């Protein structure tokens, strides 16, 4: 079936108000400015840990998923003794230089308090600084190398045709995930996402090693990344189609997971500027600072980010809140841009979540999807299937998923997350995924051609609904522009969820940078990407 899909991004189907579009982008830039400033002037313990990981610090104290990673221990010691205002890298490299010279050993020594971190002066400082810059350069090269590795891997095995069919595995056990992911790829999946165990997003460290116990998901660990990457490379070779791997650079460890993803050559990462704030009650300052660093890493590693606007519609009404999705996409776009991501790396998310009982539901979804397609012509849009209104009626549910696929096909969505007929009751069975692929292969095979063919009556219901959503979005962004992002979130303007500036988890990890703050990794990233 796949071979017959001729992917097109239909444009110019709706007479979109170009001025409104223009204005939305300007407003987004204006709203983002203070957040960009915030990121420039602050660091977080996760950013510092990420920088340490890039320096080669790894391993844990203790065992199991509760074992504490060495990077966390080092940060704790540095924070306790020196504070993080000047960053962790100078004290760390100083310890290395003035000690055994071995990175891991030194880190362990700091963790076990055999070595006390200190802020070097004079020649010692210069030595630490030089080393820090040298190591940072190597680190940033590895990140950039990921993009190169991916390019050659794709060149070698072959690129998957669009739309990319995106499937989730979520057994909790990496060793069950692997065969299921491979089976999915063999049946036509182009992208595999390993869902994380519930709760990982709220732990302020990254678990270590291969894991077999998770709730409704599998822990994101560097070893799990490596194992799955390997498995997908194997099956990709077998199929002559590069299979993409996705995980979540989200939650309290966003920056670290981003670096792990780069190192292990993941291809796409769920990474949103607000998801953690709204859906995980993570502090907003922490989130905005972390997302900037993590996005620079993604940018350089050639990773496509997937934003999470789709989630809004799981709590809010998909019609009333349609414009909030669009507004958030403009903000995600802006904050991606200012972190150096190219349009083709911006997998902006949206979803098919209108209540099926609503008259003309399919027509309205078509209008929303087409509008977003036209607003972001160069973005590999990520289209999410119905979830909220999926019930135990698996037959009707399977049909909703089919209509979702159809709307995705005719509006040229790039990344199609396949819906599961059992969404209303349990995490996917092997057979649910298989049926989802049969559904998608049928619909995309049968309707792909319509993307190029379909037109809508000028001034008709589809066009009118689209311009209404764009206008509501413009007004919302104006309002946010007036009161500022923090106030907007405090006012519950996104996903009907209220969060406070100093509330939520992780604020304690936020540190204002000192004049002497030094983080060559961050520095080099900004330089390479040519961002401020």
């Amino acid at each position, binding site marked *: 079936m796949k071979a017959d899909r001729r992917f097109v991004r239909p444009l110019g189907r709706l007479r979109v108000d170009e001025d409104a579009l223009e204005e939305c982008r300007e407003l987004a830039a204006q709203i983002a400015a203070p957040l960009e400033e915030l990121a420039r002037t602050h660091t977080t313990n996760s950013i510092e840990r990420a920088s340490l990981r890039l320096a080669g610090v790894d391993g844990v104290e203790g065992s199991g998923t509760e074992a504490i990673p060495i990077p966390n221990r080092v940060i704790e010691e540095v924070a306790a003794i020196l504070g993080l205002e000047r960053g962790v890298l100078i004290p760390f490299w100083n310890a290395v230089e003035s000690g055994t010279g071995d990175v891991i050993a030194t880190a362990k020594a700091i963790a076990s308090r055999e070595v006390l971190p200190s802020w070097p002066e004079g020649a010692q400082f210069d030595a630490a600084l030089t080393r820090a810059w040298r190591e940072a350069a190597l680190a940033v090269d590895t990140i950039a190398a990921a993009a190169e590795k991916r390019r050659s891997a794709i060149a070698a095995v072959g690129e998957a045709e669009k739309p990319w069919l995106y499937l989730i595995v*979520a057994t909790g056990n990496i060793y*069950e995930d692997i065969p*299921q992911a491979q089976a999915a790829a063999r049946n036509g999946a182009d992208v595999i996402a390993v869902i994380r165990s519930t709760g990982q997003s709220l732990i302020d460290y990254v678990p270590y090693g291969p894991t077999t116990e998770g709730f409704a998901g599998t822990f994101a660990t560097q070893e799990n990344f490596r194992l799955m990457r390997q498995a997908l490379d194997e099956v990709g070779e077998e199929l002559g189609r590069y299979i993409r791997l996705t995980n979540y650079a989200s939650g309290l460890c966003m920056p670290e997971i981003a670096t792990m993803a780069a190192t292990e050559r993941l291809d796409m990462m769920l990474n949103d500027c607000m998801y953690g704030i709204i859906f995980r009650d993570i502090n907003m300052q922490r989130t905005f600072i972390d997302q900037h660093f993590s996005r620079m890493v993604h940018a350089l590693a050639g990773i496509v980010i997937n934003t999470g606007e789709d989630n809004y519609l799981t709590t809010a009404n998909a019609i009333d809140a349609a414009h909030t999705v669009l507004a958030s996409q403009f903000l995600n776009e802006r904050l991606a841009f200012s972190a150096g991501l190219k349009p083709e790396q911006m997998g902006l998310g949206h979803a098919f979540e209108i209540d099926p009982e609503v008259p003309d539901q399919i027509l309205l979804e078509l209008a929303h999807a087409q509008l977003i397609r036209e607003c972001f012509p160069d973005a590999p849009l990520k289209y999410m299937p119905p979830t909220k209104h999926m019930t*135990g*009626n*698996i037959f009707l549910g399977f049909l909703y998923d089919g209509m979702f696929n159809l709307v995705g096909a005719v509006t040229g969505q790039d990344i199609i997350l396949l819906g599961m007929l*059992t969404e209303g*009751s349990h995490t996917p*069975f092997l057979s649910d995924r298989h049926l989802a692929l049969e559904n998608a292969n049928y619909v995309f095979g049968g309707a792909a051609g319509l993307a190029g063919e379909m037109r809508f009556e000028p001034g008709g219901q589809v066009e009118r609904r689209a311009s209404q959503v764009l206008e509501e979005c413009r007004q919302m962004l104006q309002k946010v522009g007036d009161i500022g992002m923090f106030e907007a979130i405090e006012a519950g303007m996104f996903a009907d969820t209220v969060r406070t500036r100093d509330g939520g988890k992780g604020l304690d990890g936020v540190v204002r940078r000192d004049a002497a703050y030094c983080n060559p990794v961050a520095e080099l990233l900004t330089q390479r990407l040519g961002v401020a």
Partner: protein
Amino acid sequence: MTEIRPYGDATDDGLVQLSFTLPVGASERGRQAALELAKKMGFARPQVVHMDGMGPDYTLFIVYGSTTHTIDPDLVEVRERDFPLISPPEVNRVIRESLKRQLVVVGACTGTDAHTVGLDAILSMKGFAGDHGLEYFHEIRVVNMGAQVTPQEIVETVKQESADAVLVSQVVTQRDAHILHLKEVREALEAAGQRDRLILVGGGPRFSPEQAAELGYDRVFGRGTRPSEVAAYLAWAATKRLPAAVGL
């Protein structure tokens, strides 16, 4: 191999999906009745994920449960094909050598059944799933009687054409029409003293091999049968069963 169980998303979780209608209202009592029924079928922790009232008297239930039953695939009885799947030229050769003449096949949809596509798939030159049908074999002569042919008409044609094999198709199975009609044909052939000198073959989407005995047929073929299988079987049966072949 050993005992296996259904696989939902983990080995041996035993998960199965069911749907059925009960003549009860969509009520808590109905839901419990559905759960109890599922337990009787041997499901542990059944869940009614959907309960849909169809009028006041009937309710559709969708249920998931973990079956407590297991099965050992190595121990299930699978009747292996007892004839070789030989190629068309081979089929022609075997027939020529054993019969010294063409094999005459009479095919019909009997009873009230007008579904000829299946029979035509087996008989016609065009064939099915890439295989040619029996008409393609020059050592086979096909008499396709078409649809809604009575047992009597079949008997007469069998005599006229002095057929070696009779192929009967039945697609409609409601109220076991297919069983009934196939038996009627066999009985008519017996009454006419023709049964024993013939290869009697039945087919249709709802038949499975093991039913041949109860129907009194030499062989029955089911869903997705390929003409080449049927041809190979006929050639093999010709050498085995036909008086002509065993030189009587």
